[in-house]
């Protein structure tokens, strides 16, 4: 499971740092960076005589953050257990189609559509988890394989958008309270729920334990297989929620809505940006949401500045690597002092 574990932390002598850094966890850094980004962005956009954080701006940021946020919450759980999921992008497309086709414009079919989409998502997660735990395939390859299978299914059966979402269900995608979309609030509710699950329940703790060291977890009597499968099921359900949300926004299902947005790698980027260790065992949902908000804010700022959209990718890449380099530096400093926080 720990294939992404790269012991890139050699023992190095490093000057001890002030104790004030103890509270400066990655989560805090992420939110400080977010605030700084908002300030800098506001100034830059202000120079053009516009306002970044007006109603439209906030709406834009939160709308962007909703879909990616849901996927990234799920991704956080699998990454915490030392796994990862590359199949989420196709799963988002698949669930949006299932939801929209089941509903087929009828109000009465909303609940069955949602439930069916979530059930299929959970099934895909179960397959992911079982392939990893029972067949002992590396998570990278297992989920890549499942992603390819889903892609084959989508390409075989769909050429474009399909299905129809009833008008009533579109409220989920478009209703808002002031500048805050309802869906963003629901996403945050899911985030809070996941935070509670990961940091306040026994099975949440188990995920950290498995990600930290699967052998130790196993020898301590934890059902490691079940824990990894659970993480994958939860991750896929989160991707299913994203698909349902996007179906409600688009009014129909779209096979490539997930891959066009690159949710597989993008969600991993958001999780890692939020300070979660790619090798697992450390991090959390709070940081992930910060990472998602940073990516969404960057996009919105660039849109307002009318920057070439491809420049966004360049900046995104640089930001990602810089952030992780920063965390790695702090961690190696902590290690040399023998503190494992």
């Amino acid at each position, binding site marked *: 499971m*720990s*294939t*992404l*574990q*790269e*012991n*890139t*932390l*050699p023992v190095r002598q490093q000057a001890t740092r002030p104790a004030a850094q103890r509270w400066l966890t990655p989560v805090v850094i992420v939110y400080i960076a977010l605030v700084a980004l908002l300030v800098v962005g506001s100034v830059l956009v202000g120079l053009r005589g516009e306002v970044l954080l007006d109603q439209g701006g906030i709406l834009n940021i939160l709308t962007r953050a909703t879909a990616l946020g849901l996927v990234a919450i799920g991704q956080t759980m699998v990454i915490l257990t030392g796994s990862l999921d590359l199949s989420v992008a196709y799963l988002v497309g698949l669930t949006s189609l299932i939801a929209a086709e089941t509903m087929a414009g009828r109000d009465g079919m909303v609940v069955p559509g949602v439930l069916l989409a979530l059930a299929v998502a959970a099934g895909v997660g179960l397959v992911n988890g079982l*392939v990893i735990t029972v*067949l*002992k*395939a*590396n998570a*990278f*390859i*297992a989920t*890549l*394989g*499942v*992603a*390819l*299978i*889903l*892609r*084959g*299914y989508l*390409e*075989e059966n769909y050429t474009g958008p399909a299905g129809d979402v009833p008008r009533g269900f579109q409220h989920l995608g478009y209703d808002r309270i002031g500048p805050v979309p309802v869906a963003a609030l629901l996403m945050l509710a899911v985030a809070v729920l996941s935070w509670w699950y990961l940091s306040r329940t026994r099975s949440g703790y188990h995920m950290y334990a498995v990600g930290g060291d699967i052998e130790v977890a196993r020898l301590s009597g934890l059902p490691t297989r079940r824990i990894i499968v659970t993480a994958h099921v939860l991750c896929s359900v989160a991707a299913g929620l994203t698909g349902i949300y996007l179906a409600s926004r688009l009014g129909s299902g779209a096979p490539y809505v997930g891959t066009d947005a690159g949710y597989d*790698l993008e969600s*991993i*980027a958001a999780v*890692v940006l939020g300070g979660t260790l*790619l*090798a697992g065992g450390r991090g959390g949902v709070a940081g992930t949401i910060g990472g998602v908000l940073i990516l969404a804010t960057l996009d919105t700022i660039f849109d307002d500045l009318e920057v*070439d959209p*491809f*420049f*966004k*990718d*360049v*900046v*995104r*890449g*640089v930001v*990602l*690597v810089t952030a*992780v*380099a920063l965390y*790695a*530096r702090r961690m*190696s400093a902590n290690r040399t002092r023998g503190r494992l926080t």
Partner: protein
Amino acid sequence: MTWRPRLAEGTAPVLVVLLLLLIGLAIAGPAYDEPSGYLALLKRAAPLMILAIGQYFVIVSGGFDLSVGALVTAGVVIAARLIDGSESATAWVILLVLGFGLLVGLVNGLVTTKLLVPSFIVTLGMLLVLDGAIFLWTGGAPRGALSAGFRMFGRGAVDVPVLGEVPWSVLILLAILVAAALFMRGGTGRALVAVGDNEAAVRLSGGQVDRLRLLAFVLSGLLAAVAAILLGGFAGVSAQVGNGLEFRAITAVVLGGVLLGGGRGSVVAAAAGALSLEALFTLLNLLGVSGALESAVQGVIIIVAVAYASLGSGVRQRLRLWPKQRNVARPAQPASS
């Protein structure tokens, strides 16, 4: 000293798979009755095999290189833009593309080893940066054209005494493969595998861990640039030429029985994995399987291959194909590798 040729661990299954696929090709397609058909297959597979060899170096030393697909696109687009049809520019543009690959690999390696960022993230960032930069530079649609001299490597052939017409790309591939196999037999190559197996042990025994990993990334970048030159000649200029190649190369390496996470596997097997993948696509085409199902089949196959490799010994013992006589003298095996 008696030298007995032996297969590296995990090499045998991929060779069996490759053999089955080639037999399948011979049955399914009339084009594969004579050597020229297989030569064409090898020519088509050459870029992916070269990418897989580069990816092998990184994977066996415990990393990932997700940037090779974007690097291939960048190489092709840069070459097309700079050559712009003029024959005289070919030589220095080829050098420039190779240098660019080297540079990207160097940056990947330096960020991984010096800034301690996991290579998955570094190369993912590099993928984003390269993709964005290419589009920024070309405005979405690549301009310019490759010269005939540049395209020769991808599509041209050369007369070899005994074999007749052999494509350039096959010769380049063979040269790289032989060089890689020799390199992995040498001290540096063995140290590279050791880094992937147990980095701390190598460090404690005085190995230059950082330098070795840097070397792996530089080789991967360089070979991606070579693949770009071949693909540019073979497939032509487009901004999608490298799409998804990184996953395909990783799939090929894993299919070759190389352990993700490093420390196990042979470079020849990785190249054989790439050839198997290409043969599989060809076979599916011949059998009339639609392009859509192709990826589904690919998905199933890599899961099965990896599951077989990691369940490996357990399954084999249960199937009793090779009863426990591993340390007992075995009957002489035909020499092959």
